[in-house]
C-alpha cells in the first residue's frame, strides 16, 4: 500500500461547504469519450484503474475487495493490482486478459470521461474499432522498455482509420527505465516517423507511470525534462468532436415521425451536424422537397436553437412527405445521394465476406440492401501493406466498391461520421458482420442511366405468345438436375415454347470460367447466372437453370431480381447417400478422398429450400415423371 497516494480529485471541502456551488459547476461539465489501446503488458488496465482511483471512483468496499483479490490473484505481489478492477468477466479474470470492449466512467472538476477499454490482441481488431467509433480521443500506450511495437503501429493505424483526430502517445512504465529522457526521446523519434508515414498529423506524447502515478494528474518530479501537460490535464482541455460537428452544415436523419393527433406532425432525430433554428429553410432528402422549420419541440418547452449532438423534434411549415430514413438538411447545402460507393470495410464475423451476396446496410436511420464487390485490396494492419484479396476474413480490413438497391443519402465518412459510417448485417443470421466507412460515390451512379427501350419486355413475351419464367433447379451434385432439366426443355420445345437451358457445367466453360468453388466464388457464380436469366426473361424466354446453388440467400437474391411470380424454385431432392451411390461423374469419390475440396454435401453445406414452388422427390419419381410434373405445373 505504500505507493498508493491519496486520491487527488477530492473536492470534499467545496461539497461540504457549498453544495449548490458545487452542483452549479458540475452542471456545466463537458464530456470526453476516449479509448485506451495497448498490448497485454503495456499496463493499460493499471492505468485505467489508476484514473478511477485518483478520481475517487473506487469506494471503500470495492477497495477492500480489490486488496483481497490483489493478494489472491494479483500480479503485483502484495501491492494493489489496479488491473483487477477493470478486468470484468469471470472467464477473463481467470485468463488474466481483457477480451471485449468495456466502458469505464470517471469525472474530474472539468469533465466527465467515458473510457472504452479494448484489448490489444490481434484477433480483436473488431473490438478496438468498436470502441474507437464513439471516441473523441485515443490513448496509445507504449511500454518504455519495449518501444514502438507492431501492436503500436496497428493501434495507431486503426485509430486514424476510424477518424480520431486527437491521439495521445502515453509512454508508460517510465519508472522502469529510471525516467531516462533518452529512452523517451528515442521512442518519440521512432513514433513520429511512423505517424507521419500513415498520415497522422499531430499527436501528444506524455511520459507516464500508471503504476506510480507520474504525470497522470500533475507534473512529476521524476521527469523535470518534460514540459508538456500531464495526462488528465490534456484530457480535460482537448476539444471534443461534438464542438467541431456543430460548425458543419445542418443534417438530421429522421428516426421517428411524431403524430399524436391530426394537429401535430413532428420529425424526431439526433442532430448529426450543424445547428437549426425556427425559420431555417430545410430540404428533405432523398425527395429534395423543401420547407421551413417552425418549431423545435421538447417536453421542457420550445427551443430557439438546437445543435449537433442533441435529440430533438422539428415541425415544418408545409405538409411535405418525410419519414424514417430521410435526412433533413440545410436547404442550400444538402448532402448527396448515390447507390454506388467506394468504402473501407472492417470484417467482424467468423464467416468471411462473400462478394456478391446481399447484406443489410444500415447508415444513419436508413436500411437498404447492399452487395459488395471483390475487394480492391486488403490492408495488413501490422505493416500497412496493400495485399490482393478475394474476400475479407474476421478482423480483415479492405477497400471495396459496393452498391445499394436504393439511393442513399450520404457524405464521405471523413466529413460526417453519421452519414458516412455504416454497418452490414447478415440477412440470415442477423449478426452485425462488418463496419464500414464510405469514401466517395462512384461516378458510375451519376453518369450511367437506365436506357429506356421501345420494344418492352411485355412486347417480347407477347411475340412469343408465352409468359416468361425461370425454372430454377437446385439440389445436390448427381441429384438429376441436368437430366430432368433437359427433359423439361424438350417437352416445352415440343409445345412450341421458347426456352433456354443454362447448365452449371456449361456456364463454367465460358461466362464463369474465372470462378472456382470457394463460397465467395459460388456466390458470384449464382449472381452472374441470375443476371443472365433476368436478361433472358426480359427477352421473353422461359429459362431453365441447373445449378447446385447451395445457399438459400443467393437463391433468394435471384428471386428478388425477377418479376413477382416469374421465379419457380424446383428442388430436386435426392438423399446424399443416393447421389453419392450414383456418382455419375466420380466427384463424390474424389471429394471423399480429399482430392476435391469444397464439395457440396461433403465439406461444403447444402441449404435445402424451405418452401420451394416445386418439390421433386427422386426416390419416388422417375426423371420422365418428374419432368411431366414440372411442365404441368408451369403450363396448367
Amino acid at each position, binding site marked *: 500500500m505504500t505507493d498508493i497516494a491519496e486520491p487527488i480529485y477530492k*473536492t*470534499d471541502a467545496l461539497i*461540504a461547504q457549498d*453544495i*449548490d456551488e*458545487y*452542483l452549479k459547476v458540475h*452542471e456545466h*461539465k*463537458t*464530456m470526453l469519450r476516449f479509448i485506451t489501446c495497448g498490448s497485454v503488458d503495456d499496463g493499460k488496465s493499471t492505468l485505467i484503474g489508476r484514473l478511477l482511483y485518483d478520481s475517487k*471512483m473506487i*469506494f471503500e468496499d*470495492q477497495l477492500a475487495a480489490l486488496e483481497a483479490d490483489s493478494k489472491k490473484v494479483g500480479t503485483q505481489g502484495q501491492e494493489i493490482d489496479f488491473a483487477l478492477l*477493470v478486468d*470484468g*468477466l*469471470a*472467464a477473463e479474470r481467470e485468463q488474466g486478459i481483457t*477480451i*471485449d470492449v468495456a*466502458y469505464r*466512467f470517471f469525472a474530474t472538476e472539468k469533465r*466527465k470521461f*467515458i473510457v472504452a477499454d479494448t484489448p490489444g490482441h490481434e484477433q480483436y481488431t473488431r473490438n478496438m*474499432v*468498436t470502441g474507437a*467509433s*464513439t471516441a473523441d480521443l485515443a490513448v496509445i500506450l507504449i511500454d518504455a522498455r519495449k518501444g514502438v511495437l507492431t501492436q503500436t503501429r496497428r493501434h495507431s493505424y486503426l485509430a486514424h482509420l476510424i477518424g480520431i483526430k486527437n491521439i495521445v502517445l502515453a509512454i508508460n512504465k517510465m519508472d522502469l527505465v529510471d525516467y531516462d529522457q533518452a529512452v523517451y526521446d528515442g521512442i518519440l523519434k521512432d513514433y513520429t516517423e511512423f505517424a507521419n508515414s500513415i498520415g497522422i498529423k499531430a499527436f501528444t506524447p506524455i511520459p507516464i507511470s500508471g503504476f506510480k502515478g507520474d504525470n497522470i494528474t500533475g507534473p512529476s518530479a521524476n521527469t523535470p525534462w518534460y514540459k508538456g501537460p500531464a495526462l488528465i490535464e490534456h484530457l480535460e482541455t482537448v476539444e*471534443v468532436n*461534438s*464542438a467541431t460537428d*456543430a*460548425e458543419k452544415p445542418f443534417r438530421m436523419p429522421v*428516426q*421517428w415521425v*411524431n*403524430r*399524436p393527433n391530426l394537429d401535430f406532425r413532428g420529425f*424526431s*432525430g*439526433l442532430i448529426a451536424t450543424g445547428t437549426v433554428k425556427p425559420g431555417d429553410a430545410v430540404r428533405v432528402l432523398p425527395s429534395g422537397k423543401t420547407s421551413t422549420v417552425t418549431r423545435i*419541440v*421538447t*417536453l*421542457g418547452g420550445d427551443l430557439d436553437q438546437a*445543435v449537433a*449532438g*442533441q435529440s430533438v*423534434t422539428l415541425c415544418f411549415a408545409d405538409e411535405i412527405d418525410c419519414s424514417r430514413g430521410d435526412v433533413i438538411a440545410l436547404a442550400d447545402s444538402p448532402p448527396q445521394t448515390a447507390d454506388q460507393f467506394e468504402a473501407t470495410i472492417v470484417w467482424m464475423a467468423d464467416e468471411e465476406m462473400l462478394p456478391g451476396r446481399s447484406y443489410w446496410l*444500415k447508415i*444513419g*436511420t436508413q436500411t437498404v440492401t447492399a452487395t459488395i464487390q471483390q475487394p480492391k485490396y486488403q490492408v495488413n494492419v501490422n505493416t500497412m501493406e496493400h495485399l490482393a484479396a478475394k474476400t475479407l476474413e474476421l478482423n480483415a480490413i479492405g477497400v471495396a466498391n459496393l452498391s445499394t438497391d436504393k439511393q442513399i443519402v450520404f457524405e464521405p465518412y471523413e466529413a460526417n*461520421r*453519421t452519414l458516412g*459510417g455504416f*454497418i452490414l448485417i447478415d440477412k440470415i443470421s*442477423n449478426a*452485425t458482420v462488418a*463496419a464500414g466507412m464510405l469514401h466517395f460515390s462512384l461516378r458510375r451512379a451519376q453518369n450511367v442511366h437506365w436506357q429506356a427501350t421501345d420494344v418492352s419486355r411485355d412486347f417480347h413475351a407477347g411475340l412469343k405468345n408465352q409468359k416468361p419464367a425461370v425454372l430454377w433447379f437446385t439440389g445436390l451434385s448427381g441429384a438429376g438436375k441436368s437430366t430432368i432439366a433437359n427433359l423439361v426443355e424438350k417437352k416445352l420445345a415440343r409445345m412450341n415454347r421458347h426456352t433456354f437451358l443454362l447448365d452449371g457445367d456449361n456456364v463454367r466453360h465460358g461466362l464463369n470460367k474465372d470462378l472456382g468453388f470457394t463460397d465467395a466464388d459460388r456466390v458470384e457464380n449464382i449472381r452472374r447466372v441470375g443476371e443472365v436469366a433476368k436478361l433472358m426473361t426480359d427477352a421473353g424466354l422461359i429459362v431453365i437453370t441447373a445449378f447446385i446453388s447451395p445457399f438459400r440467400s443467393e437463391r433468394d437474391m435471384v428471386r428478388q431480381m425477377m418479376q413477382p411470380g416469374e421465379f419457380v424454385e424446383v428442388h430436386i431432392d435426392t438423399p446424399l447417400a443416393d447421389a453419392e451411390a450414383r456418382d455419375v461423374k466420380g466427384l463424390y469419390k474424389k471429394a471423399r478422398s480429399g482430392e476435391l475440396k469444397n464439395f457440396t454435401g461433403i465439406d461444403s453445406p447444402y441449404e435445402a429450400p424451405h418452401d420451394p414452388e416445386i418439390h421433386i422427390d427422386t426416390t419416388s419419381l422417375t426423371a420422365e415423371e418428374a419432368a411431366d410434373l414440372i411442365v404441368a405445373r408451369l403450363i396448367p
Partner: protein
Amino acid sequence: MDAKTLTHLERLEAESIHILREVVSEAEKPVMLYSVGKDSAVMLHLARKAFYPSPPPFPLLHVDTTWKFQAMYELRDRMAQESGMELLVYQNPEAAERGINPFDHGPLHTDMWKTEGLKQALNLYGFDAAFGGARRDEEKSRAKERIFSFRTASHGWDPKNQRPELWNLYNARKNKGESIRVFPISNWTELDIWQYIHLNDVPIVPLYFADQRPTVERDGMLLMVDDDRFPLKPGEEPVMRSIRFRTLGCYPLTGAVESEAKTLREVIQETLLTTTSERQGRAIDKDAGGAGMEKKKQEGYF
C-alpha cells in the same frame, strides 16, 4: 463557455433519447421495465421527453415481488397515471402460491419472483424488446454489456457472443425466439442520475430521503420494518432511526444507511462524500464471489 459545446448531461440525455426512439422504430412490441427506483425514474422521464407530445408508445411493466416498499407502490401508480402509459403488473403465480418470501427462502426469492417472473411476463405478453435501467458503472459484468443486449428464447445471456455496437448504429434484428434487453442509460453514473433528477425535478420515492423509520439491524445491515410481515426474532425490537436508501428493492433485502439528508441537495452531498458503493446495500451481488451478477445474468436475470 461555448454555447455549442453540450454539457455531459445534455450528451447523455440525447444518447438515451436516440436509443429509445430507435427501439420504438425497429422493434415490434417494446415494453419498459419499471422498477420504481431512481434509475427507472430517470429512464421514464427520458421516455416522456423522447416522444413528447405523444405519450411513450409502449407500456410500463412492473415485475412485482409483493415485497417492495409501500412507498414504491404508491409512486408507481402515480407515475403511470401522470405519463399516460399503461401499467402492467406481473406477479409470478407459482411464487405466490408457494408463498416464496425473502425471510424463509433466501436466493430462491429473487430467482422465482424476479428472474422467473420476468421471463414469464415477457413470454406472456410477447414483448420483443424490453427497456431496463441498468448502468454500466454499477457492476463489472454490466460494464461489458451492450446497449442492445440479446437474449436467447430461454432468456439467457452469452457474454462471448455479443454484437459489436459501432457509432450510434444499433442492429435490432432478431432471430426467431430471441428478445432484446435495451439499456438506454448504460453510460450514466450514479452521480449523473442524481444531478439529472435535481435539474429536471424528476419525482422519486421519498425513501431516498432521510426520515425517522422503524428499523432492525441484522447481519450488519439496517433493515426497515415496512409492514407487519416482518418476522421479528426473539428480543428484536424495531428502533426508530433517521435513515435513507441508496437503492431500492425488496424491503427485507435492502440495507438502509443512517443519514440526516432530507433534501435532494443533501442526498447528493452525502453521495459525493460517501466512501462505499451504492450496491453495497444489496444482498444480491454477494452470491458466488466476484462473479455473482454475471452468473445471474446468464441465467436470465435482467
